């Protein structure tokens, strides 16, 4: 009888121990899952610093691989004038701090007008409008972004002046056209971007800002998409690399009040 009780007690104790073990194990797994999820979230947020948030969302959704597509996109190129010479004069940390402050302000202006910064090379940037989703107002958005960038740069220059630092000047070129959008690159070194001739044209138009001595230039295609609310001044047609005919551009003076 006693043996039977002892055996039963051992079985019950064993059962309790097993349940306790499994309970603890489940709690451990749950904690592990939560930690992994938090880590993934952190990675996703970090990833959003390099790739537009919409693209990250779609790439992290297992059912959507963001297939490449042809789409009408407006491109905005901006480049700082004489920044390289400035870098030679300033302390490297100071140069980097100045240019980072510049990019931060430009990114805010671009995002506010439905664009996203896709590339930063040295002191130049490329912003896209309508690349991750169709945007019927992309030309308007890009020009409004350029005007907001102009205002933001003026404010930043006032700050720099106050700190006895050199001021910045930029040139902005805007053009739109059909390009291929997608995640491009080699394996692990891939990024979301666009490819096609309109990008070269946008870049050349940015280059023309030096020749015409103005800060914001748009192509004829962009002008055609804008309404009378924008004050534009035609510039003399100019030859650019890769184009047989001179390119007509317009200086964006601002908005009509």
């Amino acid at each position, binding site marked *: 009888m006693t043996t039977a009780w002892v055996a039963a007690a051992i079985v019950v104790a064993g059962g309790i121990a097993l349940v306790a073990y499994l309970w603890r194990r489940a709690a451990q797994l*749950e904690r592990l*899952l939560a930690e992994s*999820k938090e880590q993934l*979230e952190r990675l*996703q*947020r970090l990833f*959003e610093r390099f790739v537009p*948030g*919409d693209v*990250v*969302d779609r790439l*992290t959704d297992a059912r959507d691989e963001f297939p490449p597509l042809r789409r009408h996109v407006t491109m905005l190129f901006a480049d700082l004038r004489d920044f390289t010479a400035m870098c030679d004069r300033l302390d490297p940390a100071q140069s980097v701090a100045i240019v980072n402050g510049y990019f931060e302000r430009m990114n805010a202006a671009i*995002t*506010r007008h*439905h664009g996203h910064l896709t590339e930063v090379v040295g002191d130049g940037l490329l912003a896209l409008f309508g690349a*991750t*989703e*169709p945007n*019927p*107002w992309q030309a*308007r958005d890009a020009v409004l972004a350029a005007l907001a960038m102009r205002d933001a740069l003026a404010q930043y220059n006032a700050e720099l002046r106050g700190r006895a630092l050199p001021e910045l000047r930029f040139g902005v070129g805007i053009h739109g056209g059909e390009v291929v959008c997608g995640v491009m690159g080699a394996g692990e070194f891939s990024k979301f971007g666009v490819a096609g001739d309109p990008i070269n044209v946008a870049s050349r138009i940015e280059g023309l800002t030096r020749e015409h001595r103005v800060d914001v230039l748009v192509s004829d295609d962009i002008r055609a*998409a*804008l*309404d009378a*609310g924008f004050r534009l001044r035609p510039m003399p047609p100019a030859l650019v690399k890769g184009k047989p005919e001179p390119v007509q551009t317009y200086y964006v003076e601002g908005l009509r009040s």
Partner: protein
Amino acid sequence: MALLLDQIEWDEPILSAVDDPAWEAEAKRRVGRVGEIDRRVAPNPWIRELCVAAVSYQPTHVPMRLFNIAAFVTAQENACRYCYGANRAALKVMGFPEALIRQIERDASVAELDVRERAVIEFCRNLARAKPRPSRAALERLVGLGYSKATADELALLIASSCFYNRIGVLTACPPERAFERFANGPLGRVVGAVAPLTLSLTNLMRRKPQIVADDANELADGPFGKVAAALAGLPAARIVKTALDGAFASPVVSRPTKALMFAIVGRALDCRYTEAAARALLAADGFDAAEVDAAVRTLAHPRLPPRETALLPWVRDTVHYQTPAVQVQTRALLNDIGRDATLEAIGVAALANGTVRLAMLLE
């Protein structure tokens, strides 16, 4: 990636609360309480009516559990601090464990939810986000998982209705229901949450069978964007949607062509051919030719609109996909330009247009 509650930047209220004892008594009778939103929309009859109807709506085909999850997920996607906080608190007092709520809001693979519920969450996020706006095929997938067509349609309605309500919350920068949130997270809320599942089960048992409303689809379709209301024929919501659309377009605070153009712009932004075509028909009746409408939608401006309403066209476009702080700054600027009554009506129209265009997926 949708923001979490404490990540949403929220401005000071854009519209102040207005005392209207008669309306508050009516709202309390129908909903059981008067919310911060009700006090802010009180001066506009059609908006306040739709807000109360949206909150008091009893789904006839969608189970309450799913209804609550859908409202919660949609509020999070729309980054509405007011609705997100209130819906989160509501889930807690209904007995949803905090761990499950966290998993839903973090979009984790939620083991406690079945495949069908997870599909609903995905559908909610996609329709609220509308990047791109899901087509009818998304509803067919839900039907393929075993939901009835009426359930799928009502689910689309609930998400569209939340998109409306969330925008009212965001664009008025309505202060959160802090007292309710505190209650839900406090000891009393936990006690209520512990007994709620049993109470809800009993309520569900006593719930009436799905109510089929005998509506004339032709009559519903007659009026601005009426086909959207007609697509819901048979659900009690059809009449609510029709009353809201008719009320919005009958209200004199913002001119009818401006409202039609606001709908056309939201339709264009979300690639909804039906909404744009229906808006064009309304504008044609008001003497606007096709070329004029094309130019207005393309440039977000029109010379024949009343001058104080010109700012509404670019603004409404920014209510489709927005960053909460930026759209609240823009709405405050609008308030300074056009005054309280017109701003409130503009907010209602923008919210209604966003809801209607999402619901128009039922027509495709």
